Every structure is written in C-alpha cells, then in structure tokens.
C-alpha cells in the first residue's frame, strides 16, 4: 500500500493497521525519515517538499511491487508527505512485514534506497542564505545500486 499526503502520520497506528487481524506475521521493520535542522553546516529552518502527482504514486507502487517480488513479504506500506515541513517533522514511513526478520529488514532498506533515487520528490530547504534546492547525493545512488538496479 502506498500513500502520498500532506498531513502527518502516526507510526504506531500505521503499523497496527497493517498487521490487524494478521497472525501469520513474525517480523515488522519500519523506517521513519525526519526533517533535520542542519545540512552540511547550514542551519535549516524547514523545508518544502514538491512532488509530481501521478508519477509519484506510479513510482512508489512500482518500488513496492519490486520489493514484494524480491522478498517474501506479508505486507508493506510507504507513506510520503509533501508540502512545508519543520525540523523534527516526519517525512516518510516505510514498513515491511514478513515471517522472519531478514526479509523485513532487507526489504525495508530496499524500499527507502530505491525511493530516494526513483520517486519524484524534491526538497527545498530554508537556509540563512534563502531557499536552497537539495542536491542529489552520490551516496544515495550508491545505496540504491547495491540492490543491482537494472
């Protein structure tokens, strides 16, 4: 399941909803991305997340489908926010559930690694020098490539 929304999410409630009435799940792994108050020496007062409605949902669904093909997942969820966010705010949630922890851990890392290089979101940070578009990080491409992209 994937969701793109402006409003905040409740991590506990999301996991509870994903696993409700399920007795077959043995492991749940979640990743939560938060807004940092600093970036490379600059203070960050907040950020605005822009995305490409239509393509975003399509890409997130494809990433989730790919994870389900690579690991034996019982359930999964991606929630990504857009709009203005303040330091400490939640940005993204990725949850994976499986019989055993290894599949859940690996699939969760995969979801967030691929999301960072394939989902059309852009962060514009508020810095003391004014708004600054965040540049893509080489490390994110390296992290995504370890899953043997293509």
């Amino acid at each position, binding site marked *: 399941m994937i969701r793109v929304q402006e409003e905040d999410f409740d991590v506990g409630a999301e996991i509870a909803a994903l696993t409700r009435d399920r007795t077959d799940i043995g492991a749940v792994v979640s990743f939560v991305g938060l807004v940092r108050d600093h970036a490379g020496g600059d203070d960050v007062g907040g950020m605005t997340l*822009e995305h*490409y409605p*239509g393509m975003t949902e*399509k890409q997130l669904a494809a990433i989730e489908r790919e994870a389900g093909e690579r690991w034996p997942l019982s359930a999964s969820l991606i929630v990504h926010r857009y709009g203005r966010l303040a330091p400490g705010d939640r940005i993204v949630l990725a949850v994976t559930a499986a019989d055993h922890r290894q599949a859940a851990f690996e699939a969760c890392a995969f979801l967030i690694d691929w*999301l960072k290089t394939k*989902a*059309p979101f852009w962060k514009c940070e508020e810095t003391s020098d004014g708004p600054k578009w965040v*540049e893509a990080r080489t490390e994110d491409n390296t992290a995504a490539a370890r899953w043997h992209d293509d």
Partner: protein
Amino acid sequence: MKIRYFAWLRTRVGHVEEEIAPPADVTTVRALIDWLRAQSPRHGEALADTTAICVAVNHEFAELGDPVAAGDEIAFFPPVTGG
C-alpha cells in the same frame, strides 16, 4: 504535448507547465530539448545542461533517445531528493 517543470527547473523556466506544438521533426527527447532551448533565454538556461536534468515521458523515466509524440506529457526535473 504538455510540458511540466519541477523544482529549480520550474523556477528557472518560470512556468509550472505549458502546452506546446513542436514541429513534426521533433520526435525524440533530445530533439524536444533542443527545440525548447530555442524558445526563450529562460528555457535555454534551464535546459542548458542535460546531465543535470531528468526526463519523464507519461510518468516514466526516459532517456534522451526515447520517442516523444503529440499528446504526451513530458516532465523535466532535477535528480530526485525525497525520502
């Protein structure tokens, strides 16, 4: 053909989107970028460096050699930074 711009490409071009009708010989992403660059100095500057730009055709990532046609939605944006 609908063109959409995101992030700094949107601010540099000065449009969120535009409806265009390029000549018939514009059949690839590469040819479309060349044609758009000539439309205004802002387009020329925003689309100057193709290594800094990602392209999507109808919501799928595309390469410079991929085809474009009337009715397509083409988006230009910088490398993504979500998550």
